[in-house]
């Protein structure tokens, strides 16, 4: 019943690629920031916390516009990255991944931060007395114990990235095969005559992917939780 056209397949593949890359790229930053916010007191912490959460409350178009003027070809960061590293974001799928990563970031940081805050630090002390230096304590105790939060953060960021529309279309437009994600494609199909069927098919696909991600997350965090209590 789902007879998808090549263009629709392209949009689906692109969406998945963008969401995966956005989530994977955000993860190290998400862990670092979650740890920083959970464990450290420093000047400007509230400000940093606010900045991270800004994409959650700003209109996505505003976030997209800010990305455009900073990471665009002529933007200060965009031109620097293009000149020195050959990394170009504007009107590329990488730009869509950047927009999706930024939008999903607050949703990723929060559960990671909460999970790290909930860890019994006396276990980390115990690890230190057993000969683990700080990096090893983090890798062998902190991170595994924060795993359920990590999974929640990854899934939320992935889901957000998959559905992101406003910031992406503002920053990198709606170019089929390059920046046209499922959401952008659905929007396009609703704007053209006879696009309803195609839009409906992509809507079903979007629902299916989101549900699968949620089920996978539930299963993974259940397993992670079970490891602490059972055999």
């Amino acid at each position, binding site marked *: 019943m789902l007879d998808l056209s090549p263009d629709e397949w392209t949009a689906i593949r692109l969406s998945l690629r963008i969401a995966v890359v956005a989530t994977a790229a955000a993860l190290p930053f998400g862990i670092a920031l979650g740890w920083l916010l959970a464990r450290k007191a420093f000047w400007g912490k509230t400000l940093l916390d606010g900045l991270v959460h800004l994409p959650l409350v700003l209109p996505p178009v505003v976030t997209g516009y800010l990305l455009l003027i900073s990471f665009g070809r002529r933007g200060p960061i965009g031109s620097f990255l293009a000149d020195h590293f050959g990394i170009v974001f504007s009107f590329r799928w990488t730009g869509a991944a950047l927009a999706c990563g930024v939008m999903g970031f607050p949703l990723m940081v929060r559960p990671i931060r909460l999970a790290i805050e909930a860890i*019994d630090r006396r*276990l980390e002390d115990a*690890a230190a*007395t*057993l*000969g683990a230096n700080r990096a090893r304590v983090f890798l062998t105790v902190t991170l595994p*114990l924060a795993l359920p939060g990590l999974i929640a953060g990854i899934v939320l960021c992935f889901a957000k990235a998959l559905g992101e529309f406003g910031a992406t279309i503002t920053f990198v437009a709606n170019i089929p095969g390059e920046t046209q994600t499922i959401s952008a494609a659905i929007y396009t199909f609703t704007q053209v005559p006879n696009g309803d069927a195609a839009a409906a098919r992509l809507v079903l696909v979007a629902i299916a992917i989101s549900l699968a991600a949620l089920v996978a997350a539930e299963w993974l965090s259940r397993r992670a939780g079970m*490891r602490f209590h*059972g055999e």
Partner: protein
Amino acid sequence: MLAVEVEKRLGDFSLAVSFKTQGGVTAVFGPSGAGKTTLVNMISGLTAPDRGRIVLGEKVLFDSSARINVPPHRRQVGYVFQEGRLFPHLSVRQNLDYGRRMQGLAPEPAEMARIVGLLDIGHLVDRRPGRLSGGERQRVAIGRALLMRPRLLLLDEPLASLDAARKREILPYLERLRDEVGVPMVYVSHHAAELRRMATSVVRLDAGRVQAVGGSELLDRADADAV
């Protein structure tokens, strides 16, 4: 063997303790709030004294005037905590093996088998700590601290979280440890009866000060167990 001379102020509480021991089991005995846990935390490196010096054998662990403060992971001081503190995400076997792995030592199956046998925890090694009884958990915690090859073993009220029957279950293992393993121990408790069976020397602590140093006769005279 172990020489401690430390000062520490924590809010209204001040601790100034000085003692030396010659191996064996040194009991640190005193009522709750005497500063016993603070003292062992300083020996382990988890808490830094304000001033003083801690020397274990030849090795200076802490010296405020020389600005030496060896971090806990390089002290090789085993620590058995009151609540066990086993890693819930690791199996008992992985918990036991943790210290060896973190120190990059080669596996020693014979030593592992000896300690596992000594503490009777062979049937538990594939379980998770969440599935252990309180007494089993404490035995595993003792095994974990021993298998890191400590130069000194700190036991902070290792039986306090256990009921009387469980205490009777663990004490013989601790005695075997003292007699067969030969690692010097600092054993913290406010229970005279428990220490009477274990201690070779006694440091009596109250309100952050050493009241007396001597043999187990110090345990007979006063029972700090006023709780």
